[in-house]
């Protein structure tokens, strides 16, 4: 076991360095807190107004989680449909390749025009951003059974449904886990960008509002919270991905 201090430095030197540089930069330039607060001031605001943050975190987080689940279900569902029908897959594949490289933030205003300037647009953005990796990774996973397994299922007279349930879907699990890892960290950040533009509720809204009210510390507080949640989501999803990979391959 490495001593605690060594472990702290080895694992977090980059982050510590970043925070230290931020603090030093603000102090040396003696910035006005409205322009750029120190990390300690931001932390102070977090500790003194937990209620403001908590409510908005709840809203953004639930939208992100709900959108993540919905997007993965829709993406996997369409991938399964494409797996069943070569025609559907032929029609869908190039379209999704096209769409998966589309800058999604550019779509936010368009979606807002269609769904209204509120939470449903935020949710739609999270679903869209989750949908594409899920569809792309699920599609390729469904088509990568272990060597020889497809022959085995044919020889044993498996039905198409059995082939899906007992072979293609389990074989796609590691790929789905990768899609989950990619989408988990982005879900909350995408929700925040949408909230920033919509301006109704959530962390993104808190950021926009406090920023224009010159409560810069709170704006950075909202970003710090989002960073921590998103980074934890990324790490947790990485752990899930590793477990799934071990389980299914």
């Amino acid at each position, binding site marked *: 076991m490495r001593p605690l201090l060594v472990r702290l430095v080895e694992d977090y030197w980059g982050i510590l360095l970043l925070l230290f540089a931020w603090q030093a930069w603000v102090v040396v330039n003696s910035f006005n807190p409205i322009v750029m607060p120190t990390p300690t001031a931001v932390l102070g605001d977090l500790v003194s107004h937990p209620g403001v943050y908590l409510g908005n975190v709840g809203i953004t987080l639930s939208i992100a989680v709900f959108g993540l689940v919905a997007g993965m279900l829709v993406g996997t569902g369409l991938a399964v449909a494409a797996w069943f029908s070569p025609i559907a897959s032929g029609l869908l594949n190039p379209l999704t390749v*096209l769409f998966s490289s589309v800058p999604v933030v550019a779509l936010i205003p368009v979606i807002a025009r269609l769904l209204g300037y509120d939470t449903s647009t935020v949710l739609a953005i999270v679903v869209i951003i989750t949908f594409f990796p899920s569809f792309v990774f699920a599609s390729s996973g469904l088509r990568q059974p272990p060597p020889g397994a497809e022959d085995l299922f044919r020889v044993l007279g498996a039905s198409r449904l059995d082939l899906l349930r007992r072979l293609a879907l389990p074989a796609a699990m590691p790929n789905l886990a990768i899609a989950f890892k990619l989408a988990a960290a982005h879900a909350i950040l995408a929700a925040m960008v949408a909230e920033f533009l919509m301006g109704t509720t959530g962390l993104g809204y808190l950021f926009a509002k406090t920023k224009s009210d010159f409560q810069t510390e709170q704006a950075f507080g909202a970003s710090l919270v989002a960073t921590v949640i998103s980074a934890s989501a990324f790490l947790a999803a990485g752990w899930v991905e590793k477990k799934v990979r071990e389980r299914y391959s």
Partner: protein
Amino acid sequence: MKQTLLGALGIALFLALWEVVGRTQILGISWPPLSDVLAELTDERRRPLFLRALGATLESTALGYLWGTGAGLILATVAHLLPALRRGSDRLAAVLNSVPSIALGPIFLVLLTRESTPAAVSSIHVFFIVFVSVSSGLQRATPAHRDLFAVLGADRIKRFGRLELPAALPSLVSGLRLAWPAALIGAIIGEWFGAPRGIGILIINAMQNFQIVLLWCAVLLAVGASLFFYGLLTLLERAAYARFG
């Protein structure tokens, strides 16, 4: 062959659906027919506006792309050669990737200028993708190959240059491909923080002035810029996999 035809048919169906939805106004006036958008997009009078916006965004994106790629390559290589730094740099990259882009905007605004903020936000997006793809690529050299190099008496530098770097190339190129749309998104968000021009500005202005057709034009410009270079990079990726895969 059949797949290509089906794919073309799928895209044609999508475009036709777009036109029909716009013509019949099932989704209201927010969904203009494709033909209207294309007419506006090719309108002579609009051309200078579009070209200026596209030029500014592409310039920021390209700059951010270069800076991000350089930073990602360097940090990944250093962390690979000095294993003591590896865990810390992984975490730093994960945290940088988790900072909301809308928070990066104001920071770079103080740190840099209004004009260079889009490129800076974009470079952070690119940095993460390149860092991750290079780090995992550098670990792709198989143990058997490593043993072979050890037996042949290759030193650390030779092993890196002759084995690990070539093995990482396909992964790097995939990363470069995926990084382009991310770079474009970063530039667009960065433009929201006071850039004088760009597609991001066009989008925001059109949204606030309810210029729906113009908004769609801006979106199409962004999509076009993303797809064109994404396509080019895909070709590059194929070549790299064919050579080193």
